[in-house]
């Protein structure tokens, strides 16, 4: 089974899942909101989220690459069924979830990251105006 975890500093993870449900309906995504009740992120917590059966795959989304949340999960990438992407955004999660029927690999995730990056763009007024409009 493919599993998803969004792990962030504080409550961004819950917010992302709330918005995600709005777009794609209920989906089995776990969240970890670190440092809400404590100044620490325990190894037990990390182990809880990374415990998988042989058939399971896990994609972890984190907020910032340099942060302690990403650092804590990093050692578990030794498990080939666990993948991690930092810099989580709504387009990124959507791309990954909508590719649920494709075989998971680092190459696939790289492609999906590229798609999501294209969704990050500056919008300027009237930039899309075309002579043939109207």
């Amino acid at each position, binding site marked *: 089974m493919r599993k998803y975890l969004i792990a962030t*500093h504080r409550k961004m993870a819950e917010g992302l899942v709330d918005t995600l449900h709005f777009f794609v309906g209920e989906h089995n995504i776990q969240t970890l909101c670190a440092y809400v009740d*404590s*100044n*620490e992120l325990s190894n037990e917590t990390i182990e809880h989220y990374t415990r998988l059966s042989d058939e399971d795959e896990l994609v972890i989304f984190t*907020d*910032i*690459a*340099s*942060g*302690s*949340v*990403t*650092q*804590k999960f*990093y*050692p578990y990438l030794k498990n080939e069924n666990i993948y991690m992407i930092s810099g989580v955004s709504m387009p990124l999660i959507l791309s990954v979830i909508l590719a649920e029927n494709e075989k998971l690999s680092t190459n696939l995730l790289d492609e999906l990251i590229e798609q999501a990056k294209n969704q990050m763009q500056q919008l300027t007024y009237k930039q899309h105006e075309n002579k043939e409009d109207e």
Partner: protein
Amino acid sequence: MTVVGARIDNRLLHGIVATQWAPQSGASRVMVIDDTVAEDPVLKESMKLGRPSGMAISIISKKTALTNFKAGKYDAQKVFIVSKTPEIYLQLLKQNIQIPEIILGGTVVPEENTALKVSKRAYILEDQFDVYKEILKTGSRIFAKFVPSDKDIDLATLI
């Protein structure tokens, strides 16, 4: 001045340090002084994710730090240090390394009710009072502050 920033933080080099404190200090090297992380290759590799762009990184034990500073290894560099506890700063000060300012960023929430809460995120344990006092005696200043925009809480007024 070699040490351009110093911080006490139970999470060592994490997001807020990597994206705000270290870059704002103008450091050329970020240095984690911690025996546990320095001796564990996996923890060490994980913490390197926190390297701010363009900065060198050292993740070293207290002993290595004291030896390297004594040998003048960092004399031509600007170093931002993070440690979980204050002792190393006192040891460096005793080696005549100048550390004008130390930031007490965060500590774990202690079980001991003898600990002093100095900010929302930082405590001083009973057995650390003397270390902090000795540091203040050298002329270094200590401020409790989690993010740079927090108001300074001057430890000299609290202990």
